[in-house]
């Protein structure tokens, strides 16, 4: 089959994925046949307007798009179509598969487990550290970590995977050459090196709000299981979860506290029957992944003095606590608290996120 025609059918203005799906169904997945079809044949397809048929039969447009295809392949833009072997087979299964995938770097491999780690942009420090840890654990167990490069949970998951030197893939809403959001450019570069960037839209397509649900269906479509780390009740990650269920993927959620608004969506998912992420080891076992030595957390073998231990284990929480509170609750002097906090910070166990507000990170 000719890739040119596939490129052409994906780039006709005003013909989106739904219409393409209908056309391809009518012509047995052969866009070339559609190109050579007449008025009548095209008119039989429900949902196609007169203007659409004219656009399909517009030879000038076709010529222009063919030229553009040549130019893009010359430029080294990578794309893959459903009839090709490289096209991820997991995506083929889903009901509204993308009819083209543009990518940078590599594509996810079919016979390696893929796991998506997604969550809200506006996450807590705890959520960030869990996402990072999940990314790290999954990648070092050999899984492909897939997410959306968004701020917050998504990027933390990517970073964790990069840290472990594993495979990670980011699905963008806009074109793969535009790093969105641009704050994550460093991670974007790391991901290209450790895996790939994937999108349904051609290069230079700016990201618009309506594209995110489309992007989310690819994220869930590309993987075997989706883990929601932190999601509010109105979070876009819940769309991913819903689509994952539709696509028959396993959904996991990281539990939060009852009163915690950041985790309300996750808790709701669990209540509805989603799997709970209760420990990293159990998670790996359930996903049939090997628990390697690198996945074990080395938290226990750090030696702490008694003051530090008291601060660390009893008081410091994954929510931030102020210096004043710590002094009051420990009955230690300000000097002692400062000393213990500095020691913990130097050991990398806690972090000062705002002035004199401390949280534990492991």
């Amino acid at each position: 089959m000719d890739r040119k025609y596939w490129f052409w059918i994906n780039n006709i203005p005003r013909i989106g994925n739904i219409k393409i799906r209908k056309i391809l169904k009518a012509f047995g997945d052969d866009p070339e046949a559609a190109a050579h079809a007449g008025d009548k044949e095209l008119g039989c397809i429900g949902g196609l307007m007169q203007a659409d048929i004219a656009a399909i039969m517009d030879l000038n447009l076709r010529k222009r798009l063919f030229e553009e295809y040549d130019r893009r392949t010359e430029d080294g833009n990578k794309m893959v179509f459903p009839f090709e072997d490289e096209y991820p087979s997991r995506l083929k299964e889903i009901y509204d598969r993308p009819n083209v995938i543009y990518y940078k770097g590599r594509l996810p491999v079919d016979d390696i487990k893929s796991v998506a780690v997604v969550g809200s942009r506006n996450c807590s420090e705890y959520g960030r550290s869990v996402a990072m840890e999940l990314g790290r654990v999954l990648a070092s167990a050999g899984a492909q970590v897939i997410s959306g490069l968004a701020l917050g949970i998504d990027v933390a998951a990517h970073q964790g995977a990069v840290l472990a030197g594993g495979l990670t893939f980011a699905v963008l809403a806009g074109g793969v050459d535009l790093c969105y959001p641009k704050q994550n450019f460093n991670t974007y570069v790391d991901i290209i090196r450790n895996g790939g960037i994937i999108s349904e839209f051609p290069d230079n397509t700016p990201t618009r709000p309506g594209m995110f649900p489309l992007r989310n269906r690819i994220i869930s479509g590309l993987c075997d299981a989706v883990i929601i780390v932190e999601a509010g009740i109105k979070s876009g990650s819940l769309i991913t979860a819903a689509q994952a269920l539709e696509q028959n993927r396993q959904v996991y959620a990281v539990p939060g506290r009852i009163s915690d608004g950041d985790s309300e969506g996750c808790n709701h998912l669990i209540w509805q029957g989603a799997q709970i992420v209760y420990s990293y080891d159990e998670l790996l076992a359930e996903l049939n992944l090997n628990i390697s030595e690198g996945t074990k957390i080395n938290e226990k073998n750090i030696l702490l003095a008694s003051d530090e231990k008291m601060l660390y284990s009893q008081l410091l929480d994954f929510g931030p606590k102020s210096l004043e509170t710590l002094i009051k609750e420990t009955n230690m002097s300000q000097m002692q608290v400062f000393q213990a906090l500095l020691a913990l910070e130097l050991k990398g166990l806690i972090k000062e996120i705002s002035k004199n507000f401390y949280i534990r990170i492991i």
Partner: protein
Amino acid sequence: MLGNAYTSVINGIDAVSVKVEADISAGFPCFDITGNLGVAVRESRERVRMAIKNSGIKMSPARMIVNISPADLRKEGTHYDLAVAMAVLQAAGRIKHNLCEDIMFIGELGLNGELRPVRGVLPMVINWCRSGKQYVVLPKENAMEASYVKDAKIIPAATLNEVIECINGNHTEVSFEKSDSSPLTEYGMDFADIHGQLSLKRAIMVAAASMHNMLMIGPPGAGKTMAAERIPGILPPMTYEQQLELSGIYSVAGMLKDGISFVDRRCFRAPHHCITPQAMAGGGNGLMPGEVSLACHGVLFMDEFNLFSTKTVEVLRQPMESGHILIDRVNGKVEYPADFMLVAAMNPCKCGYYPDRNRCNCTPAQVRAYFGRLSRPLLDRIDVCVQVPRIKYEDMVCDDKDIYTNEYMRSVVERAFNIQNERFAGEKYSLNSSIPAADISRYCVLDKEAENLMNSIYDSCDLSARGYHKLLKVARTIADIDDSEYITAEHICEASGYRMV
């Protein structure tokens, strides 16, 4: 016939004596003044002529020329009137010549012959006395402020006639009683009024003990302003030289009035955040001192620190480093002292509650942007950064006083000041906060444990060289409060808790 009288030109907070010469000769009647004059000085000839006439002194029409020398110095202000009048009266033979040689005349004349107060008296009197002379004639409203200069003999007067009388009567003493200048230490506000907030009060004490610049971060209504207002109250009294310098600045700025004749307390300046860079630095018409100079030896409080325009805030950089500010404008170049303690306050984010996620909905990007308005070099110059948490209900209603009262804090700060004065006896500076980088290793001596700790902090916290020195200076101050000769690990720990985030 010739007549001479002396007065002064103000330049910054310094003054230069100038001589007013008058000549009356026959010819077409006129009255001219020369000598690079500003508008207000040029207008003085009308005031002088009418004041002389209305004081009942008859002058026959003649050619009167007045020159203020040196003629190349720019003259601004209205205080030349009296000297011009005295020179003219001498030239007209109304006053004996030799009487005015050792007297400086300061004052603006009204058309009815009365003397009106002027600004900048203090620097003029200081300069006059420095040149070995003593007598100064000035408006009685300005007499109080001039009397703080130790050697000066002040002759206050209310009208031109009074001035002539006391000159002709060979300086008949219109004696002036010096008000007793016992330093006032009561500011009417006490740290005991602030309940709880122990860590804040401790940090303020550390900062005040060496006038370290500090930044308070906290939610609205936590007590940042309340705490800042009380800082001048725990600083030790200024020395006489500092008082004189500060009063000079206020005198030049025309702010010594309404019964305030001398600034003997630490100042608290809290400019609003819409202030312009010029008002902050100084300048404008007459090159007035700005807020940084008015806060000299005291506290410059900047509430909502990040809402100040970027330019205004960056103006602070040079004075924070050097302790003075050089203002260079079209109409001159002056240097004002600007050795202040910066106390800045701000909210952690737009809504003010970060990192309390139950109340704050700001995204991390918004929080970063809120902080991002402050430049890193400026934050680098702030030594003590502290968080002011929301006050708890139990603390607010509890009436138990903690140890942090003004009395206790002032005694601690004063002791630390004394230690520092002793240590830096031979140096140009007298506080830890102004130790130059070259001298740090000499004065900030660490013990073994502290050195190891400092090493690991430097590596893991990614300090800059300035940040490293800053940490050592704060640790030095904490050690002084502790009366310890060496800086120990404890001191480093606490200082590191005051690090900028």
